[in-house]
């Protein structure tokens, strides 16, 4: 194991891999440490969606800038990532929803997103298998530049490009401690050896609070078990992701034809629970049958669990810690870490190398929780 590095990143999920690439591109000597392998946590279990339709400007901007990066990412990294833009269709169920949708659309348009409100007829044009009555939808919002990418391929593409730039990945390596002296990061201690460094990045997803604790930092994140399922592959039917904030459901047809989706589990609880539940399977199957009755005859192949790393306002925590110099927060993605990773990684790389940041991130600092903050409303899954 190397004894020294400019930056040590804890976590080889999408954010750890993307940041390793952005830093290595800037000439930094980067090490990534993960207890398991690349995309073994939330990244490899996520719904693969890329959405720009958020209720807070912070999330919407991070997502929009990330889509701009996703559009050229395959070429930049030199490996396939399976990016495609079929849009996101978000159900509007009543007048209350409509009020919030109008507010969201106005903000989203102000930052340049091609989003619009569509009627029930257009819902069926975009996703022919949808039943607006079963959905209990009066309308929907649609943004055609939202889409999908393959989380496994994207994380690995970032990792391979980072390695090509000189980054080192230590898989199956567990962080045991972080040495802090005079309120500055000095060393990361693992079960395979210690690495001297001035910067450590906490990109450990649902385990980020354990890593922060090693540096004496308390963060308010909570791990929440989430579940998803996938069906057998079907011929190509639709390209959009369908979601409802009211019902919490999301589903779409993946590149190979299978339908993948999730919904909040009736037995959802905080903590490290890994077991898939029957009640999720039942609820998801029921709701899918209501949204798209024709899918009732489709076989479910498997279900699995993953974690959202949830903060009190469902916004990520980004930036350097105010009390421990060199400790970089990169966690709390609350279920949308994959879709905003490209821009998040770029901003944190700019922060670490002392460049000017493309977007301000002060409002995403850990300290915001002391003052109170505006909660992101557009959350599913």
């Amino acid at each position, binding site marked *: 194991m190397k004894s020294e590095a400019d930056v040590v990143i804890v976590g080889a999920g999408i954010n750890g891999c993307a940041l390793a690439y952005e830093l290595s591109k800037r000439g930094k000597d980067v090490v990534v440490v993960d207890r398991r392998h690349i995309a073994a946590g939330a990244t490899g279990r996520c719904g693969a969606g890329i959405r720009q339709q958020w209720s807070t400007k912070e999330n919407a901007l991070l997502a929009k800038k990330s889509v701009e990066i996703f559009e050229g990412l395959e070429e930049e990294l030199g490996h396939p990532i399976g990016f495609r833009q079929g849009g996101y269709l978000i159900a509007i169920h009543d007048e209350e929803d409509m009020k919030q949708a109008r507010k969201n659309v106005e903000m989203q348009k102000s930052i340049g997103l091609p989003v619009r409100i569509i009627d029930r007829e257009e819902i069926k044009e975009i996703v022919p298998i949808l039943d607006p009555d079963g959905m209990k939808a009066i309308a929907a919002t649609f943004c055609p530049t939202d889409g999908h990418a393959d989380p496994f391929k994207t994380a*690995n593409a970032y990792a391979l490009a980072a390695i090509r730039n000189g980054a080192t990945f230590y898989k199956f390596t567990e962080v045991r401690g972080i040495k802090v002296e005079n309120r500055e990061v000095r060393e990361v201690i693992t079960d395979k050896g210690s690495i001297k460094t001035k910067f450590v990045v906490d990109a450990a997803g649902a385990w980020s609070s354990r890593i922060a604790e090693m540096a004496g930092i308390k963060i308010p994140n909570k791990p929440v078990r989430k579940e998803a399922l996938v069906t057998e592959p079907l011929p190509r039917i639709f390209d959009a992701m369908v979601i409802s904030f009211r019902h919490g459901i999301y589903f779409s047809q993946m590149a190979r034809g299978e339908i993948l989706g999730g919904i909040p589990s009736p037995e959802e609880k905080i903590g490290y629970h890994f077991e898939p539940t029957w009640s999720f399977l039942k609820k*998801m199957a029921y709701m899918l049958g209501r949204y798209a009755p024709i899918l*009732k005859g489709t076989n*479910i192949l498997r279900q699995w669990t993953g974690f959202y790393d949830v903060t009190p306002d469902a916004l990520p925590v980004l930036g350097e810690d105010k009390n421990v110099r060199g400790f970089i927060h990169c966690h709390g993605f609350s279920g949308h870490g994959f879709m905003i990773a490209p821009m998040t990684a770029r901003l944190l790389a700019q922060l670490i190398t002392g460049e000017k940041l493309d977007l301000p991130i002060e409002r995403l600092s850990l300290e915001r929780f002391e003052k109170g903050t505006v909660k992101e409303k557009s959350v599913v899954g």
Partner: protein
Amino acid sequence: MKIVCRCEDLTEEDIVNAIRKYDMRTLSELRQILRLGMGPCQGRTCLPIAARILARETGQKIEDVMPPASRPPVVPVEIGVVGEDEE
């Protein structure tokens, strides 16, 4: 040419190449990159064979090659059957 995963049409060569390219140690990594065992049979045929190839390529003991998490339902089941009597 030796076919290992019939659902996903993967050969022994595909598996060996992926193990080397990505420096893999687990079946879980093979599943992510190649979709090994993610087809209709859910790995019942290919996983034991892939485990043997992985053990050989990485110098691990066959019993140390971690089996990936088993994911229900064990056999494919229709959406309409599972979601029938909700509400």
